[in-house]
């Protein structure tokens, strides 16, 4: 079982603290979503996991060892931090071959990684001519070369079309199902809701939440119920009297919070009011995420 253990991790750039005393654990067999607004410190944290940036304080270990101490790193950790981190004049296959050879991996791993990412057809083309989606795939192929138990992806769906996003999402899920530890960063909460089992939310370098996805949805996606009736003006005061909060929705519907669907249905039946719709609404996770991180947004849009 290979876990990533981050303990008290801190990174300062001059007077600025990019990552501030961050601690969490990435467990195997699940996708851990790493969320935070722009500049929260996600990429910096990932660079420190890979030893590309040195922590000011704190430690990161992978299965108990520092990344630099892994004897054959690509067989333990695969990472895609930046799809652009290839030499554009080199062919995709040669790029992967150099990486494989550097870790003593057999040549066939290159073909396997190309096949798994659907890049066989362009393997002998120069990476500089690749579309963003193809470059993301090449980065993922590089991450898979050593069949590692830990995978780290920094915004792998950035710039992808819906099909590409879906492919990456399914891919992450299948990697986790195989028992690997998968850490994926994003600033899109809704995307994470579909991909991640576990959530780590940071803002301004600090830990905001470290929780299971289901738990996060229950506690933050406080439900409202959409109610449609021919007599909204009669029903609204009854709901309010029963302790619910009511506001008008579109097309003379009512949006009710503080009561669940069953209670609303009983109340309507008791007062003899016919309902034409009674639909529980999942509060947007994006809203929950915004609420959670609003104090720590570094670059607030003007007039927001």
């Amino acid at each position, binding site marked *: 079982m290979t876990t990533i253990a981050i303990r008290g991790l801190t990174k300062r750039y001059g007077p600025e603290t990019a990552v501030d005393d961050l601690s969490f654990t990435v467990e195997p067999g699940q996708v851990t979503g790493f969320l935070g607004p722009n500049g929260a410190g996600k990429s910096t944290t990932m*660079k420190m996991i*890979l*030893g*590309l*940036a*040195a922590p000011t304080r704190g430690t990161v270990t992978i299965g108990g060892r520092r*990344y*630099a101490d*892994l*004897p*054959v*790193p*690509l*067989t333990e*950790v695969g*990472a895609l*931090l*930046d799809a*652009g*981190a*290839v*030499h*554009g*004049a*080199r*062919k995709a296959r*040669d*790029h992967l*071959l*150099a*990486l494989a*050879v*550097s*870790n*003593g*991996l*057999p040549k066939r*791993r290159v073909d396997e990684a190309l096949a798994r990412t659907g890049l066989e057809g362009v393997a002998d083309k120069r990476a500089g001519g690749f579309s963003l989606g193809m470059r993301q795939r090449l980065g993922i192929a*590089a991450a898979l070369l*050593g*069949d590692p*138990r830990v995978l780290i992806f920094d915004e792998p769906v950035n710039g992808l079309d819906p099909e590409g996003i879906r492919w990456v999402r399914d891919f992450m899920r299948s990697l986790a199902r*195989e*028992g690997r530890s998968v850490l994926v960063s994003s600033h899109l909460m809704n995307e994470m809701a579909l991909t991640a089992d576990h959530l780590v939310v940071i803002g301004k370098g600090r830990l905001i939440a470290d929780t299971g996805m289901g738990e996060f949805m229950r506690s933050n996606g406080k439900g409202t119920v959409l109610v449609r009736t021919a007599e909204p003006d009669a029903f609204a005061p009854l709901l309010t009297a029963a302790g619910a909060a009511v506001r008008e929705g579109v097309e003379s519907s009512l949006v009710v919070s503080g009561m669940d669907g069953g209670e609303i249905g009983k109340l309507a039946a008791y007062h003899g009011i016919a309902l034409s719709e009674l639909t529980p609404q999942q509060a947007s996770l994006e809203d929950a995420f915004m609420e959670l991180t609003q104090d720590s947004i570094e670059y607030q849009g003007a007039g927001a």
Partner: protein
Amino acid sequence: MTTLTDTAAVPFHRTLRAEWIKFRTLRSTWYTLAGLFVLGIGIAALAMDPAAASYRDATAAERLDWDPTALSLRAFMLAQLVVGVLGILVVTSEYATGMMRTSLAATPRRHRLLAAKAVLIAGVALVVGQVLMFAAFFVGQALLASYDVPNASLGDPGVLSAVAGSGLYLTAIALLAAGLGVILRATAGALAILVAVIFLVPAFAELFPSWTQGLLDYWPTVTGTAVTATVADPDFPHPWFNVGGMCLGIAAVLVAAFVLFRRRDV
């Protein structure tokens, strides 16, 4: 999941082979090498005609200084710039493209990665430098013979060491360039410093204070010129001694490069 290799650390020769794959799979490598040979041998060839003419016009006293070996090796002056570009690019092209992060993720032991790069560029420059300088020597001597002026053969005193020495000099310059590439992390900056070191400083040597003159005896280009000479120069009684001094300086640059390479974030 199966492990693909045993848990022993990857041996150094694998890191070196990976660097070789990276080096040979760029077209620019081969264009640069082709340019090096065209330029190096071309200059050696073109310079022989005016050299022969000056010999014919020379007085008997001047003819004592006639050094056909050094003349044919003069091409090292420009060759060192091209070899230097190769040395710089082995490092800076990875910074420019972001490839350095990928390389360091695959080989997180930084001294090992940089050592592989240094061995690679030294090996390439050693082979290329020797082939180039021997080719320049033979082409130059053949042309001098065809112009009917005295020329040298490899067996003449000091000739072999001058030819091989100029090739070794190019190897040292390639390592200096790679070190500058690490320190500056940018092609343009490293190239500017390299040009200043190999061309500008020797050209403006008279402008520097007298206490620096001793240092200049060990300066690149100055030592390169000294090592190619087969006619004794009173200023450089032991040119290999000067080359050795230059190598010490280059070693110091490389030490700085290794220290910085380990310490800096990428």
